[in-house]
């Protein structure tokens, strides 16, 4: 699953050649390792008003970062945070945005540029809505300018919700950290004050019991690894035929293996019974199990359509229903489902897959409000091109092209999806309600 091109242009002749020819020059992304500092250099917090002060205090006071409030020439920043919650007219953007722009050429590699803003609503004054929506376009374009593994993302905090709300703080930290290495050009909504910050940012899932379906291999196995690393007790679920790999994953993460077909009518009951009997509770349900049966719709057959919908979305709905009606999924519960950029932008030959993955996006949007009374939520991640056994089967040339079609000019790794899942599974994410977070390196297609 190696990316030969990425290695080739990384140094020496390959690097020079790519530069001369104007070819893409992706750099290997840096991923999170427990114990690493949050940033490798100073952070610049731009913007006026109390929200910018709050963010500066958070970064400087709570997280012990070297924070500047105005750009100092010659300083190379590891992060630039644009706090734009107070903008009321598009002309308000110029000051902070241009100041940020002046730092971009000298950003440290793998830097982070973040916006913090408010959502544009139909009820806003037109100028306010214009200013707020302007942040959206600004951020997405800015992210496309960044190089050397730097990313740009935004936190959109609902009116009436403090920028220091747990989910806003957790989202800021996620986007600043290397946990979000392959998340780029995304704006994530924080809708409420719900959620609780962890006692230890290295173990944000301490004391939580999480079920991961499709955990025997690929992204699911990595999700199990990352949730366990973050402190969760993991129940690894996969079909009995994948039992050997599943056992290896369960043993690696010191969790338990549950052999189960997620499409079984009693799957939800069995998952819950196992989690309660063996681990005393169930807090996090990660719906990762998924299959593909690609075919042009013109050639589609029921045996290629139906299993995809059954596994990828119908099983999730049935399991969620069982959990919701059980009365045992009420301790700040989290559902995190795997969608796909195919379900957002579409993909030729994947009508069945895209229908199922679009379904996932709709399902979490409608399921999240049902969990809110318990301090719960449901969200999805939408992976773009991720280097897995599944994408390794794509023909070589198609694969090479698919990898470059994003701002980071490379495929993501399983761990990039897993980090996003772990973030949405954390108690801190309670204010992120029914959203789909793309993990796609800012793929050129879709939002």
């Amino acid at each position, binding site marked *: 699953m190696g990316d030969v091109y990425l290695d080739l242009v990384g140094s020496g002749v390959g690097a020079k050649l790519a530069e001369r020819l104007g070819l893409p020059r992706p750099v290997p992304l840096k991923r999170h390792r427990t114990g690493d500092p949050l940033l490798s250099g100073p952070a610049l917090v731009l913007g006026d008003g109390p929200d910018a002060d709050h963010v500066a205090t958070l970064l400087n006071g709570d997280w012990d970062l070297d924070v500047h409030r105005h750009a100092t020439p010659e300083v190379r920043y590891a992060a630039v945070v644009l706090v734009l919650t107070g903008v009321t007219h598009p002309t308000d953007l110029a000051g902070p945005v241009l100041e940020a722009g002046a730092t971009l050429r000298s950003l440290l590699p793998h830097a982070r540029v973040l916006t913090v803003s408010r959502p544009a609503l139909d009820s806003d004054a037109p100028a306010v809505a214009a200013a707020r929506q302007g942040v959206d376009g600004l951020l997405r374009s800015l992210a496309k300018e960044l190089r050397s593994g730097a990313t740009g993302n935004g936190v959109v905090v609902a009116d009436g919700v403090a920028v220091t709300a747990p989910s806003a703080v957790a989202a800021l930290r996620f986007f600043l950290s290397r946990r979000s290495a392959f998340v780029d050009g995304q704006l994530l909504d924080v809708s409420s004050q719900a959620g609780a910050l962890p006692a230890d940012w290295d173990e944000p899932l301490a004391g939580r019991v999480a079920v991961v379906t499709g955990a025997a291999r690929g992204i699911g196995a990595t999700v199990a690894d990352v949730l366990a690393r973050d402190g969760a007790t993991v129940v690894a679920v996969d079909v*009995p*035929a994948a039992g050997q790999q599943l*056992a290896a994953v369960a043993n690696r993460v*010191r969790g*338990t*293996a549950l052999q189960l077909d997620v499409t079984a009518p009693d799957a939800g009951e069995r998952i819950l019974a196992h989690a309660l*009997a063996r681990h005393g509770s169930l807090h996090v349900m990660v719906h990762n199990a998924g299959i593909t049966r690609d075919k042009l719709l013109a050639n589609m057959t029921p045996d290629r359509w139906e299993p995809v919908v059954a596994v990828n979305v119908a099983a999730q709905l049935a399991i969620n229903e069982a959990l919701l009606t059980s009365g045992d999924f009420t301790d700040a519960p989290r559902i995190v489902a795997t969608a796909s950029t195919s379900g957002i932008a579409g993909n030729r030959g994947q009508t069945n897959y895209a229908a199922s993955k679009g379904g996932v996006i709709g399902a979490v949007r409608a399921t999240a409000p049902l969990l809110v009374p318990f301090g719960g939520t449901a969200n999805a991640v939408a992976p773009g091109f991720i280097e897995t056994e599944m994408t390794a089967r794509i023909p070589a040339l198609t694969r090479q092209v698919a990898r470059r079609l994003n701002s980071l000019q490379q495929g993501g790794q399983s761990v990039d999806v897993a980090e996003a899942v772990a973030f949405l599974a954390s108690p801190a994410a309670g204010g992120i309600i029914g959203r789909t977070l793309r993990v796609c390196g800012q793929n050129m297609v879709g939002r």
Partner: protein
Amino acid sequence: MARTTTAARPRPAYVLGGNRTPFARAGGPYARASNLDLLTAALDGLVARYGLQGETIGQVAGGAVLKHSRDFNLTREAVLGSPLSPHTPATDTQEACATGVETVVSLANKIRLGQLDSAIAAGVDSASDAPIVVGDRLRSALLAANRAKNAGGRLAALAKVRPKDLAPVAPRPDEPRTGLSMGEHQAITTAQWGIAREAQDELALGSHRKLAAAWDAGFFDDLVTGYAGLARDGVLRADTSLEKLAALPPVFGTRLDAPATMTAGNSTPLSDGASSVLLGSAQWAAAHDLTPLAAVVDAQVAAVDFVRGGEGLLMAPVYAVPRLLARHGLTLDDFALIEIHEAFASTVLATLAAWESDEFGRERLGLPGAFGAVPRERLNVRGSSLAAGHPFAATGGRIVATTAKALHQLKAEQGGTPRALVSVCAAGGLGIAAILEAA
């Protein structure tokens, strides 16, 4: 501080769960897996199912019937290769095909006496990876050469080797005292009891159908972990039929006077696989959030004189079971489930016939009449070795774990305290029977 002796009275020992590999036909998907690989896989799956990583289990005991001498610490090596704590003691056990049940019973007894709080009974066999042995003449020449003090002595010793001495000797479960294979022995018993070919084929068909139905119902989802690409028992033929079975030629008893009735379809094939059973006290189970499935109540071993005594090689359980039941004042009617290991279909049928015989009951069992009849709907209800396969030392673990789960389910569905009887015959005229009781 007052001194107390541990467990002045025995306490119950429970089956808490189990795990096995799917069983494979010898030379099939596990052809390249060793006994150690398979046994470790069975433990890996058990540890994963019950979250026992890093756990110090009181004792793991297990073994193989076909075992190379280099595997003198087979079970300990499997423990060291598993995620269990390396402080977990391990013991190798061997009692031919009774190894599995004997191991369960020995460990359960230690738990009952308070010597252990937890244990894993395991068993493995690989007919594919059977050790090859050199002939006795070559062996003594090699040993002599090894003893020799100089090159000349070594050459002299090796010069005695003749080409025919180089032929390897593969171990076979033949009886050393009679030179007959197990199948030929059973053919004699089959003829003695006049067990018809059709009855044997029907029993084999039932075994395949019941095992397939259990797989289809997901019964084995928490008893088996796939291995080497195999997700179900490789011997299982869900689509077999009486016609297909009837078409198979007899393979045993072809030189007897009676018609030969034993075929590859109604005899167990050589198989590869491993099993494990998790055992513990009620306290240990509670401390680990595990649910007891069934108690191991009691067991009885027996042996028959198949060399000169005129009894069939595989008939020892026929004697063990009445002794065991007498000790508890029970009859066959007191058991909701009866598991009789299907070494051959005719072994099961000869066992049933002997128990139903007044003459046998009076003359051999010392009873007033027939011992009793086994209600067929309670016999091997989820299939047995004819369909699952029979990796010798792994069969006991398969039967005990399957039966314990079935008992637990029965109790949940019907209440009461259903019991199961387990009976396994073995080479050497050995047999073992055990009683399990739903928890």
